[in-house]
């Protein structure tokens, strides 16, 4: 399927682009910024879905994303405040935001079932990419123990989102009829 393929390409692009494949070790203020940005991106995507979709499962999933990512980002903000750390913008955050803005524009042109499928497929790909970045880069690079543990909890949450998105995608596939 085209949407599946494009999502896969997007995921690969995210993984191999400078966005999440920098060699340089990230600092805690940078890691905090990336993690927060990743959450903001998913909230924006979910809000677009809530505005555009009429599918019950897609809307419920989007609501879950808004609720969870807001809760996690609030925890992240509380932590940086407590640690007296100012999140620092960086190339990874910038590339993530740029890619996300492109994706929002791309999905904005779709409607109905085509939108639903593209949104959920991108959610699968996006969470997969973020989880990979958390596992291989952000968690190992984090120096502060509390930041590391928040990222580890974040990883479990986002792995849950990925599975949830895969389930929703499977129901969309069923309702449309598999190719």
């Amino acid at each position, binding site marked *: 399927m085209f949407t599946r393929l494009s999502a896969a390409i997007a995921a690969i692009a995210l993984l191999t682009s400078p966005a999440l494949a920098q060699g340089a070790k990230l600092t805690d203020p940078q890691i905090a910024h990336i993690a927060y940005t990743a959450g903001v991106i998913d909230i924006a995507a979910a809000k677009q879905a809530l505005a555009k979709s009429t599918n019950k499962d897609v809307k419920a999933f989007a609501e*879950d994303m808004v*609720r*969870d990512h807001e*809760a*996690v980002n*609030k*925890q992240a903000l509380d932590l940086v405040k407590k640690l007296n750390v100012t999140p620092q913008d960086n190339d990874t955050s910038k590339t993530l935001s740029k890619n996300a803005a492109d994706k929002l524009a791309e999905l904005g042109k779709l409607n109905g079932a085509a939108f639903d499928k593209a949104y959920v497929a991108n959610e699968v790909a996006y969470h997969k990419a973020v989880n990979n970045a958390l596992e291989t880069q952000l968690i190992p690079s984090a120096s502060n123990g509390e930041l590391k543990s928040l990222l580890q*909890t974040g990883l*479990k*949450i986002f*792995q*849950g*989102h990925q*599975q*949830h998105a895969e*389930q929703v995608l499977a129901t969309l596939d069923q309702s449309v009829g598999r190719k």
Partner: protein
Amino acid sequence: MKPKWFSPRFVAFVLIALVVGTPISARAATIQISVENLEFSPAEASAKVGDTIEWVNKDVLAHTATARNGDWDVMLPPKKSGTLVLKKAGTVDYYCRFHPNMKATLTVAP
């Protein structure tokens, strides 16, 4: 003549019977399962029909305890508890609908 069953004693007995609901011999227990950091703990719990399961959600996230067989679906709001009175014996696998990677098993004896 005032009938006997309106006596305060009898009324109190009826009220207690209503509140307790089940025969005293059933000794229904409340079993707590904690939900923290996206884990049900203990992941394998045992109980009896009539017991109450109380899931104590310590996360800032909403979770659910949802039976795979469709028998029950308990909402666990952030930092709150959800309860379920067990009505059927059997082994039930359950998970969180929002985070399907959260899985656990409940074994209910008759």
